[in-house]
């Protein structure tokens, strides 16, 4: 990885420092710190309610952390509004893909081009040549991404005619069209069939290499975490429990305890 490191960028595409998040009296995140090395795939795991999605929302700017600091590509972003994060090269997907069901798959994906397409309302209502050129470029790239993820055939179809698994693929294409440097995937395998998970793993690996992406993935599917990630960060009750490879995490007694409870964990290891 050292060979691909550019001098103008820090080694960590994402750096989370002592991030805490409180809603009223409830502590959702408690001083979480980790780095996502550039070009890597980092898994964020933990039992339900551990604070994984809340941490995602802090990184993507949807929540503002109560304390701590988050650096995306070396830029402090805690006070940056969520809608400016796309310009900083951050894209994310959601647990439940939110597509415009009445619109075509292509139209859904093309939203991803919003952050790099120039032109305000006047330019677009006059259909200036530059807007038409950008529209053509976005369409071509969107179609290319759909072809890559095996969804080329669906471009003209309304999104509501596709299955849940395919919605996830469309959402991934939408996120990739924004030309991200850092991609956050929130439970990408939830609700997917075995074959679809296999395909997803292949796709994520491929696009990571090709677009020189850093990927952070929240996931329950341990198969996907083992197959995909270089490192995992385990959260429990809003705090970091451990950090290591997926294999280390699965054999760590603290992680087993967090997932299964103390007594059961003790019985099993006995």
């Amino acid at each position, binding site marked *: 990885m050292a060979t691909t490191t550019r001098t103008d960028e820090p080694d960590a595409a994402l750096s989370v420092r002592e991030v805490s998040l409180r809603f009223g009296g409830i502590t959702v995140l408690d001083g979480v710190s980790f780095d996502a090395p550039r070009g890597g795939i980092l898994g964020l795991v933990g039992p339900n309610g551990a604070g994984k999605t809340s941490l995602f929302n802090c990184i*993507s700017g949807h929540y503002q952390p109560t304390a701590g600091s988050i650096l995306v590509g070396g830029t402090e972003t805690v006070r940056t509004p969520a809608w400016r994060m796309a310009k900083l090269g951050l894209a994310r997907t959601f647990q439940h893909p*939110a597509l415009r069901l009445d619109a075509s798959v292509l139209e859904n994906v093309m939203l991803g081009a919003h952050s790099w397409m120039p032109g305000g309302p006047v330019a677009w209502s006059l259909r200036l040549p530059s807007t038409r050129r950008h529209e053509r470029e976005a369409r071509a790239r969107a179609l290319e991404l759909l072809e890559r993820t095996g969804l080329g055939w669906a471009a003209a*179809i309304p999104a509501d005619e596709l299955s849940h698994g395919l919605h996830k693929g469309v959402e991934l294409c939408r996120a990739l069209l924004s030309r991200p440097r850092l991609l956050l995937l929130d439970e990408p395998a939830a609700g997917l069939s075995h074959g679809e998970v296999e395909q997803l793993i292949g796709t994520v690996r491929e696009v990571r290499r090709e677009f020189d992406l850093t990927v952070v993935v929240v996931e329950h599917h341990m198969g996907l975490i083992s197959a995909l990630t270089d490192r995992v960060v385990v959260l429990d009750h809003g705090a970091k429990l451990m950090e290591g490879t997926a294999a280390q995490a699965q054999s760590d007694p603290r992680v087993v305890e967090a997932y299964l409870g103390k007594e059961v964990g003790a019985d099993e290891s006995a």
Partner: protein
Amino acid sequence: MATTPTSTARAASTSRSGSTSRWRGIAFVGVLAVALVVAPLVSSPYVNYQLSSIAVFAVAILGLNIVMGYTGQVSLGQSAFLGLGAYIAAYGILHGWPGPLTLLLCAVVPAVVGMLVALAAARLRGLALAMITLALPIVGVPLARRFDDFTGGSQGQVVSWLRAPESTGLANDQWRYYVVVLIAVVAFVLARNLVRGRIGRSFAIVKENEAVALSMGVSPYRTKVLAFTIASLLGGVSGFMYLAIVQYTSPETLVFATSINLVAAMVIGGSASIIGTALGAVYYVLVPVLAGQVNSSRTALISGAVLLAVLFLLPAGLVSLPRRLARLRSSTRRPHPSAPPTTSDEATHRASAPSATTDQHS
């Protein structure tokens, strides 16, 4: 996945249907253009007045559709901007301003007012936003009565203007028709361009899901302010057009009931649809006229019955009528109207199976 035969077949079929629909579109626009040009020459002044009214309210509904239909923000104040535009036009004409400058101010001043309101109100959602917009006509009517130096008070302003130039050989009603229809056509073309590209997609995602909008680089707040500003601008322009054909404005122009009727017309024509907007304007103007001819003492009742009937039979508005009919026809003939013309490929199954079920249910 064996997508190659499927995708080529589909690509071929889309390009084929794409070119047919383009020719159909060009033919439609051509016929419409001829009809719009010829109509006033062969119609009575009364019919021309009604046709001009359709153009006026089409622009008001167009603005409403941008903010409500496309962006999903409830606005109950469109009549206030229509009234504001009409008053500015009346003031300008009575003070001898040139027509184009008056039109420009009728667009810019309501747009600025709308933007200022939206900058404060767009942080609110749903009912709270609706209440703020509701206040505009409610506050506007007494203001219009009070500031009689500017508005002529309760009597309103009679403005006699926009006479047909001698050289054209047109009657006044024909000349005014051409003026308002030209403005409406320009407004519709610009709005259609706007809702198709980058800005249109940002409107649509703010309506659909603000969290996704944020993650894709769209600021919901700015998008709502923009949509509301455009709606106010078009409302003001429709006020100019209103004064052009009615030659009179009073506090009645901006009453709240007009806003509600505009919303109803927008929904009936077709929310988030440009053609639906035009159909909504036709409904807005013609149904009360026709209902009055059926029974002049039951106009409101008949209009209400038509409203309910349309909403019940066509929840997506009049614009969905052809689609609805096509679907009814094909569901009685063939079960798989939208299936791609290919062999039984995995992809084909995925694409066609859900559409077949929708057809059975509808």
